[in-house]
């Protein structure tokens, strides 16, 4: 499965009127909070899956900030995306406690499917992201799939998880990896 990078690398898509309406509603609802920028960005991303670059100017104007300030914040934080993610988002823990129980094998396994961290599958079904710790360090390797935490994940459980969401064919993908897809 070939993949395309999405985290910042993809060209920014122009925002649609619906997207602007969502951004404006977020501003209207949250703009009066002290330090409103992060709550607004989260709210926009929760609804759209990303923060359209075209939204920066609107948010800046509403909060009396410069465009550079808004842009700087969006790009500083790893969470904010500039392009829509796939239908499903898989976040794989890369931190030490998960490494201690072989967590890096999960990334290698997905790489065998052409899915590197920060990439979305060509069919748009799955975005893979790396995270540093999900707070499940006694039950690693850990992943978060569409916001839900999964522990003691090996290659087989990962395939089951993706299979159940219709991303990989149930029972593995036929990649023939030893100890992997079954």
């Amino acid at each position, binding site marked *: 499965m070939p993949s395309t990078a999405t985290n910042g690398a993809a060209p920014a898509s122009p925002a649609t009127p619906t997207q602007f309406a969502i951004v404006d509603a977020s501003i209207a609802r949250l703009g009066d909070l*002290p*330090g*409103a*920028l*992060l*709550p607004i*960005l*989260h709210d926009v991303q929760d609804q759209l899956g990303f923060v359209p670059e075209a939204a920066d100017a609107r948010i800046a104007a509403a*909060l009396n900030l410069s465009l550079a*300030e808004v842009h*700087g*914040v969006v790009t*500083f*934080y*790893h*969470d*904010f995306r500039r392009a829509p993610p796939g239908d499903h988002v898989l976040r794989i823990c890369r*931190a*030490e*406690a*998960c*490494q*201690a*129980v072989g967590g890096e094998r999960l990334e290698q396994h997905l790489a065998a499917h052409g899915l590197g961290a920060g990439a979305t599958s060509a069919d748009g079904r799955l975005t893979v992201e790396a*995270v*540093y*710790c*999900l*707070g*499940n*360090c*006694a*039950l*690693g390797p*850990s992943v*978060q799939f569409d*916001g*839900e*935490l*999964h*522990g*003691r994940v090996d290659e087989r459980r990962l395939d089951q998880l993706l299979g159940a969401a219709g991303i990989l064919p149930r029972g593995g993908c036929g990649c023939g990896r030893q100890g992997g897809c079954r």
Partner: protein
Amino acid sequence: MTATVYVPRDSAAVSVGAHAVAAAIAAAAAGRGERVRLVRNGSRGLLWLEPLIEVATASGRIAYGPVQAHDVEGLFAADVLRGGAHPLRLGPTAEIGWLARQQRLSFARTGVVDPLSADDYEAHGGLVALRAALAMAGDALVEQVASSGLRGRGGAGFPAGIKWRTVRQAQADQKYVACNADEGDSGTFSDRMLLEGDPFTLLEGMAIAGLAVGATVGYVYLRSEYPDARAVLRAAIETARARGWLGDSVLGSSRAFDVHLRIGAGAYICGEETAMLESLEGKRGIVRAKPPLPAIAGLWGKPTLVHNVMTLAAVPWIVQHGGAAYAAIGSGRSRGTLPVQLAGNVARGGLVEVPFGTTLRELLVDYGGGTRSGRPIRAVQVGGPLGAYVPSSAFDLPLDYEAFAAAGFLVGHGGVVVFDDTVDLGRMARFAMAFCAAESCGKCTPCRIGSTRGVEVLDKILAGEQREANTALLRDLCDTMTHGSLCAMGGLLPMPVLSALDHFPEDFGKG
């Protein structure tokens, strides 16, 4: 009669199937015409036994675990609702040695109560401290905390009483309490467990802190990686407001304190207190130079009491039982208990709240039971990604800020990550450098450039390229980072790198 069954909602339990178990129990009960009240409690912290369910019986709560959904039919056939015998039966929860040996002060209620039941909270001793605090003068409250010897659990171990005094004495029209729930360290989850299992304890601790220092507004800065904790805390704040525990008149006292929840956005450095304040203000998480201390000029320039979740969660116990009672527990200048988190390649991982002075060996062997893989323990990393890799020769060291510092180690937030003998410490040192390069806020050169250079130098060492010269270069670089960094990110990064190099030199190239 309705049977009460506890199935944790803690996300660690959920990560290994707790939701499916709860659903299976509801279905099995309905199928048999049994009446069951399902309580979604926090976790008891015996994480290797999750999902660990409990049944309330005449002789107390009986535990079963680890339970999978497909075990439920068999459990019902074994009369689980009345504590029946079954291979998964662990006996009375309170008598499980792993739990009974701990000293649970901050975690007394987690896993016991329904996290969102205000009545349950009060029935288990909640609000006793807040009521007492409302009857005390602010100075007296500060003295209770000072005399308890409580130190910051976020990493630095700074005495809480000094901070409280500073914020209390600062003159300002507005002061804040800012709770640091960024919990970015790998191997740590105690903040998360408390937030998901007993959030009112944190809110009570924050309210007491607000009363003591004269702050009327509190913020919790919670990492975005914890969506379940966010949901529980948000609901708890709403309940606390509805009950009048928070708001314009705390418990009818006419004194105000309210709490607002803010979510981080995936930047490790935002756990550093000044970067966190910047982030709360809606800016990039760039570290501020100190002075001024946040206690003098913090959030929006106002005096701000910044504390980790665990520090604030210790406060209700201290106020209820007195500072002296807390100070009577512990070792040296490390007073009270530390909620230790056993993580990584460990057979019996979970939350172990023990007095300071407990040795690493007790934690790793008596509690942890060695590695999950069954192989020998080779190293443990204590204190998160900036903490040292501790070799087995140092396992008799007691948990104690000063003892750890003297040995060149860090207690940090109490995370203990276990590695077996397959670990490559050269790779882990490189990982530490790469992590710092990725997460540095970029404000100062030693950290920003040094970590990138460190990755390059380590690559050469690991490839066996001019090992001696490059190792000397690495040590130089670490020296510059230790002494030239603005904050502890760059300042402490040499700790995992050099501890790995010093204690496990055989993992650093052959040259």
